[in-house]
């Protein structure tokens, strides 16, 4: 075919006509999470809340005049995280990647996203290292493991020591952790903060795959702590608590980080034993509406769409992470990662701006410095936020401390 200047000009006009049409199309967000395997229920829950946030935003006209759409990429390991990112970018043509329930998956998938020039918007993965890498395409809206550790130390001093009528230097704390990088990194930060606060503490570890953890409980019991803090996974947390019950280990306070706040632990231990157990947890939809404006509405949206209660508090954290992304996209005017990161870096909202009680202000490594977990407690078979006091609903206070 002979290409004349006229056909070239016509083609250019046609292309120009197509561009706005593409701009008005869908913004595809690839959600990298485990949707099969042992962590599927939490991966699913996080992505369900991404989808909820997109539906909520689409009702308001989307972002940049474009509809938002979540595309799922299944990853149960770091290696699968790379494959999922490749597939989402190459086959599904997503504009942005997001996630992630598991740190190792986030770590691998976000590096792959950078290689492909895409933004990786992290909402849930915890390890501090993720932002410490300083990847130019990476930002995290939720709290990191350091914030969880800091909140636990704060709770030990502000809640437990106060309730026991002890000064920080008189409080004895046992830090139990599972011995992989997850539990160890949180323990190290707790040790640093407890030292700084002058709180005497002992440290014990166990394998998350251990058949028996009674030895760990006996070591802790020998230390006679006022407060026993544990960072572990669901199954070993339940095993530790059962061993504590069997061994008659009754510290004045029990505190669990990141887990222990779901039906899995309630089913294993029962409401009576769990009464008063403290939980360092993502803010839940039950928090005070003044602290987390819109939390009740989130719960309403979730129930309307899925016809049940949220499975885990990770969901609302993911929902808020998406909302912050939408604001960054709107400010950037594009999905290009350099522009979105630059726009996000300028976001500045005070604490209690979102459903979770978060504000937004990113530090130089793009970690949101205004995202904090709360202290919750098992009370009559339900988990209720108790600290900060402003996060607790009216009438909800700390119970069963010291433990009966």
């Amino acid at each position, binding site marked *: 075919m002979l290409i004349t200047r006229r056909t070239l000009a016509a083609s250019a006009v046609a292309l120009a006509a197509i561009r706005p049409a593409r701009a008005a199309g869908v913004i595809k967000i690839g959600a990298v999470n485990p949707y099969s395997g042992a962590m599927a229920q939490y991966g699913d829950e996080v992505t369900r809340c991404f989808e909820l946030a997109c539906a909520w935003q689409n009702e308001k006209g989307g972002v940049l005049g474009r509809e938002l759409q979540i595309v799922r990429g299944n990853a149960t390991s770091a290696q699968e995280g790379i494959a999922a990112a490749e597939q989402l970018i190459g086959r599904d043509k997503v504009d942005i990647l997001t996630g992630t329930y598991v740190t190792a998956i986030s770590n691998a998938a976000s590096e792959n996203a950078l290689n492909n020039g895409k933004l990786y918007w992290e909402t849930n993965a915890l390890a501090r290292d993720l932002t410490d890498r300083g990847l130019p395409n990476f930002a995290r809206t939720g709290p990191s493991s350091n914030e969880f550790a800091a909140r636990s130390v704060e709770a030990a001093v502000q809640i437990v020591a106060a309730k026991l009528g002890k000064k920080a230097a008189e409080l004895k704390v046992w830090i139990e952790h599972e011995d992989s990088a997850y539990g160890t990194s949180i323990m190290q930060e707790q040790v640093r903060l407890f030292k700084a606060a002058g709180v005497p503490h002992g440290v014990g*570890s166990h394998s998350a795959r251990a058949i028996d953890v009674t030895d760990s409980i006996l070591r802790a019991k020998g230390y006679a702590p006022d407060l026993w803090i544990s960072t572990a996974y669901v199954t070993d947390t*339940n095993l530790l608590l059962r061993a504590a019950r069997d061994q008659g280990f009754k510290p004045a306070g029990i505190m669990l980080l990141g887990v222990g706040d779901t039906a899995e632990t309630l089913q294993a231990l029962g409401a009576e034993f769990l009464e008063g157990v403290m939980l360092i947890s993502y803010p839940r939809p039950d928090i005070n509406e003044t602290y987390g404006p819109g939390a009740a509405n989130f719960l309403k949206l979730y129930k309307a769409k899925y016809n049940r209660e949220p499975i885990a508090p990770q969901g609302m954290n993911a929902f808020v992470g998406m909302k912050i992304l939408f604001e960054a996209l709107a400010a950037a005017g594009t999905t290009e990662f350099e522009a979105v990161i630059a726009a996000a870096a300028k976001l500045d909202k005070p604490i209690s701006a979102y459903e979770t009680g978060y504000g937004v202000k990113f530090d130089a490594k793009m970690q949101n410095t205004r995202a904090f977990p709360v202290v919750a407690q098992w009370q009559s078979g339900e988990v209720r936020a108790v600290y900060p006091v402003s996060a607790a609903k009216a009438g909800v206070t700390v119970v069963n401390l010291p433990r009966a």
Partner: protein
Amino acid sequence: MAELANILTVGLLLGGIYALVSVGLNLIFGVIRIVNFAQGEFVMLGMYGAFAANAALGLDPYLAGIVVVPALFLLGAAVYWLILRPLQGEPMMQIFATFGLLMVLENLVLAGSRGVSVSVNSLVSQMSVAIGPVQIGLSRLIVLAAACLVSLALGLFLTRTMPGRAIRAVAQDRKAARLMGINVDVAFTASFGIGAALAALAGCLLAPLYTMSPQIGMNFIMPAFAVVVLGGLGSVLGAFVGGIIVGLTEALAGFYLDPALKQAVLFMVFIVVLIVRPAGLFGHAGAEEMGLRDVT
């Protein structure tokens, strides 16, 4: 002293768990000479079976064995007949087949449960007794008692009954056994079924102790292999004593050294025993070739 008594008790009770899990594994190895990688998954199925029996029939997990143990016997027999029997004469392929079975069972439960961990409680599981300074969970005591009874019963079955003697005869020399009129295929199928049924019994009794996940079988299988090799391949008594030794080693190392080191200490003991007694404590030299021995 109280501290030592406490930790020795913990080790003994843990040993009961290991012995109970290992005895079926050792039977299968002793008779059929297959290292059954899927044995932990049979334990896992036993645990989920107890959960299902509790949910569907309201059975206490300690009574769930009435339903679950026969079911796993049938499953084990079917697995042997349909998967392992066609691979007779290909021992490596049989081992790979059991590994494949491990993956199939784990992922089937994973797909069914969507990875949600579940627990089943019994009234007994929340009770503990204090003997002086020593605190003992009743559910662990039941497991230890069951391990003693099962080992004793299996030993008696193999030495005092005709089917048991037939199994031992097949284990010692399958050609001679066949010449004596013993149906070798039936003996092997029954042995694999009994091994799976013992795993199911272990699963039912352990169910109130653990939060179940589809991967929990893997947690049991590594120490179980150590128990079997330490006690002596093919020896029922070896599986029991090996379990107790492994339990005590883990508890003492975990308490007096560091919980993170207990696996390292256990496998150091394991290596030393292998060097000093390559056949294990109660095994006979060549048991890996000969199979189940008279020492039961």
